[in-house]
């Protein structure tokens, strides 16, 4: 028996065919374009997603018989709005999670609802520009023609479920990212819809991530090589699936991801959330669970920026010898004392989301002395990124969600020295994952649970998730990091105004200005 897990991402779609033992049998990837018709806009065509999805399904299912594929499930980019008319046709291109055109709508919603904290009480999160709700209001304000045709708003992966089954349905983890789904009470917020004068019927029915949405329609089954008995399970939001794929399904287990951006995510069995909205609060794909999530914008990005600009010799060595510049940097960093001899990096190279929600904040190196070397700087970058992740972890702790184990993924998790830094700064056992396949793997687990190959997520995770090594925190290191983390925390408040002014002066005096 096999299941298919599909991740509908922003750059493309990835599919995995997985056996009931958790072995990956085949994989496929297909790209699609991203459209930016105006600065700050970010759109994709749902029809192009669908074409790509069909292709990858065909590729991964080719090696087995259709009847052997018991279920298919999805992980999807969150927050995107797919606008459908009453015939189920796409009205206009989908507006994506990273689209920021809705600045005014965000402000309007917040004001209408009586402030951010009211919204957080109503639905669990403030309506960030990227979230779905402001996009719908934007459509109403700016494209009334299109809005008048609007029958249903679907999330990206739900559109694919609709194309496969003919059913318009969503599930809890993705609905959570709309900013109009009451995350705590697990239902659309009629209260907020009323305040904003939105017809609540534009939102689809919401089921659980692992519920059966339907079967592959006969017509589709023939076209793409699946069986009409293959179950379609909606799956979850990419972050929820990422967590499931790493077995992060119980309170106490944390996910620490250091990719381009960085994520700290932890499930909770009670609706515990930050009243200040500094971290996101969403429904998990696992029954009756939620999760909190903090996002830092420049995690691995900080190190690659540092490498490209300040480790040019290492880059040259890589070109000549083929030894990766990161490997050389890691070896250099190993020799630097814990805490980089009190050199601190603030990783706000692209503004910051968690916990500051501040687009104007900037990066910094603080505490430089003449004896600091390049290796100190590289280590400070790793430590600074990890302090920034700890900010999210601390907020979660303050909500009573205590970490027992942090499982780490992403490029940063491959560095041995960074693994130890994470254990020491988080002050908790850190574990690596053997198979780092991302959210598609989690979608496959949801498919396996939804199709009853396993009785529970626990059972599925037991079989599918293969842990790597365990890194214990070293207490004397943690003591140093605790002190430096306190200083790290004091830097943002100390420099906040300076950043704002610098930002404004820089806009005036930077090269770009000459063209105006």
């Amino acid at each position, binding site marked *: 028996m096999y299941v298919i897990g599909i991740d509908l991402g922003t750059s493309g779609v990835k599919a995995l065919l997985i056996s009931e033992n958790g072995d990956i049998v085949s994989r496929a990837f297909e790209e699609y374009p991203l459209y930016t018709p105006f600065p700050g806009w970010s759109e994709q065509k749902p029809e192009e997603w669908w074409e790509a999805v069909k292709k990858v399904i065909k590729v991964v299912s080719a090696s087995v018989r259709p009847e052997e594929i018991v279920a298919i499930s999805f992980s999807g980019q969150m927050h995107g709005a797919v606008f459908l008319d009453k015939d189920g046709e796409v009205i206009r291109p989908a507006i994506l999670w990273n689209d920021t055109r809705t600045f005014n709508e965000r402000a309007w919603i917040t004001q209408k609802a009586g402030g951010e904290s009211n919204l957080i009480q109503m639905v669990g999160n403030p309506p960030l520009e990227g979230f779905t709700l402001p996009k719908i209001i934007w459509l109403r304000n700016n494209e009334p023609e299109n809005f008048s045709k609007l029958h249903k708003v679907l999330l990206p992966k739900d559109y694919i479920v609709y194309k496969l089954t003919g059913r318009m349905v969503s599930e809890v983890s993705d609905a959570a990212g709309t900013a109009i789904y009451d995350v705590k009470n697990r239902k659309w917020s009629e209260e907020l819809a009323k305040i904003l004068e939105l017809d609540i019927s534009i939102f689809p029915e919401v089921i659980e991530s692992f519920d059966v949405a339907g079967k592959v329609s006969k017509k589709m089954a023939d076209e793409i090589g699946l069986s009409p008995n293959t179950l379609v399970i909606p799956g979850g939001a990419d972050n929820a699936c990422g967590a499931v794929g790493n077995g992060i399904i119980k309170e106490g287990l944390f996910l620490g991801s250091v990719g381009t951006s960085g994520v700290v995510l932890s499930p909770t069995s009670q609706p515990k959330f930050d009243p200040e909205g500094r971290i996101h609060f969403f429904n998990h794909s696992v029954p009756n669970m939620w999760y909190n999530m903090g996002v830092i914008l*420049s995690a691995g*990005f900080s190190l690659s*920026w540092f490498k490209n*600009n*300040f480790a*040019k*010799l290492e880059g*040259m060595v890589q070109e000549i010898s083929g030894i990766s510049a990161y490997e050389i940097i890691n070896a250099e960093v190993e020799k630097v004392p814990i*805490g980089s*001899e*009190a050199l*601190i990096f603030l990783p706000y*190279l*692209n503004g910051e989301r968690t916990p500051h929600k501040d687009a104007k904040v*900037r*990066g*910094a*190196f*603080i*505490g*430089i*002395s*003449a004896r*600091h*070397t*390049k290796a100190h*700087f590289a280590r400070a970058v790793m430590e600074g990124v990890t302090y920034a992740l700890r900010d999210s972890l601390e907020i979660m702790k303050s909500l009573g969600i205590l970490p027992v184990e942090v499982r780490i993924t992403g490029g940063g998790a491959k560095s041995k020295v960074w693994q130890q830094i994470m254990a020491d700064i988080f002050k908790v056992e850190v574990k690596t994952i053997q198979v780092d396949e991302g959210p598609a793997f989690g979608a496959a687990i949801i498919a396996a649970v939804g199709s009853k190959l396993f009785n529970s997520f626990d059972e599925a995770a037991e079989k599918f998730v293969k842990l790597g090594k365990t890194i214990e925190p070293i207490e004397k290191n943690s003591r*140093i990091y605790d*002190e*430096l983390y306190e*200083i790290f925390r*004091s*830097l943002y408040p*100390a*420099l906040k*105004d*300076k*950043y704002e*002014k*610098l*930002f404004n*002066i*820089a806009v005036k*005096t*930077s*090269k770009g200005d000459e063209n105006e």
Partner: protein
Amino acid sequence: MEKKYLFGTDIGTQGTKTIVVDLEGNVLASAIRNYEVIKPKPLWAEQWPDTWVKAVFETVKEVLEKSKVNPLEVAGIAISGLYGGSGVPVDKDMEPIRPCLIWMDRRAQKEVEWVKKNVPLDKLFEITGNYVDSYFGFTKIMWIRNNEPENWKRIYQFISPKDYVIYVMTGENAIDYSSAGNLGGVFDLRKKYWSEEMCKILNIPMSMLPERMVKSADVVGRVTKEASELCGLAEGTPVIAGGIDAPVAALSVGVLEEKSHVAMVGTSTCWGVIHRGGNITPKLVSYPYVAYDDEIIYTFGGSATTGGLATWFRNEFGQKELEFEKAIGISAYKLLEQEAEDIPAGSEGLIVLPYFMGERSPIWDPNAKGTIIGLTLYHTRKHVYRAILEGAAYALRHNMDEGMKAGLELAPECIMTGGVAKSKLWVQIFADVTGFPMRIPVEDFEAPYADALLAGVGSGVLSSYEKIKEWVKFREPVKPNPENKKIYDEYYKEYLKSYEALKEIMENLSKIAMR
């Protein structure tokens, strides 16, 4: 025989340089000996005086040989030097007891705290014209007293480095006004002599300070027979007092008019202005100048790292450029500078606080730290390099501003000397940030050149100090770009505020780093 040659020697921290010039200021030969600073612990910096004696004797000898000047035609030699910090502690037989704590040494932190707690600072300032910091020599004398009682018992006097060498050369013990003033704490700036009152308050016996105080152009003594054999100068050659290297270097570029100011930008920056003493500030350091010693005061300030910043950056982040330098001979600095030229003033929103070694004036904060703020993914290495050059220039402006705030007047142009003055971009940034055109001498012979002048004035073969104006030639001044100045005015405000915002945090970081 006609006396037509002058010797000038400067004892620096890293080396000693001697030159010989004729009466028209032409340099005929020069010689350098380098040596190391002993750093047994962080913040400590010491040197044995024998190192200096050896370097002075050897360079004098080498210059005589190279120039083929007849020793009998030498009118005199003057010696300037680093300030000695504590001075060389010697016993009754004028034998050194322990190495000299030099200016770089910052170990006297507890003594500084003690002074701040127990001495009214306005009184200290009123008498000495200076404040307290572990930079000043008197705190280092107190450190020896508090920490080395066995040595303290044997100490007869503290002799400044160049005065120690002059003693070995002549058998005469004296100190010039600038060196005495630079001890701080125990020197009465108005009376121009040791302050009995302050010596009592600080518990430094006045007998430990040389009794004979002379002008920088005064003859201290004459070369003895023994010294003559070692250095090659004729027995009886006049030895002139000289002074502290910084004001002597200022004199070497013709600083003689009130309000004249000069920024010596090398590894560190030393910016100074001369005046009649009406307006001084405890944020800067003041002591008698080395010409017109009894009328003119030299007030200076300076950041601990300037060229040092560029060297550090090149060594850490310009390793690729260093490889190119080795392979094809283009200076790595030049390569880094070329990149940074393309970046607009203000480095598109970066500010560097250049306190990589703590900071001297005007903030006097040993715990201050280097800082780069305003980074985004858009910024590249060239932005950061330019921001470092700008940070050094903000530090210079900070010192000038403190002087002007106290009422010191500055001439409309600033003279600039030192290794950093060779960087076209950096000099332009200094001009743009401070708003002063920068005048750079065609040739920069530094302190030994003015030592030669002092030797000439002291021995009587030169009629006056003003002769230096005929010796020195300048290039066209580098003028500030008014548009950049406007931009830098805005950044400079944020520069000042950034330090204020981070001061306490830097102190905490220092504590952690010390552990």
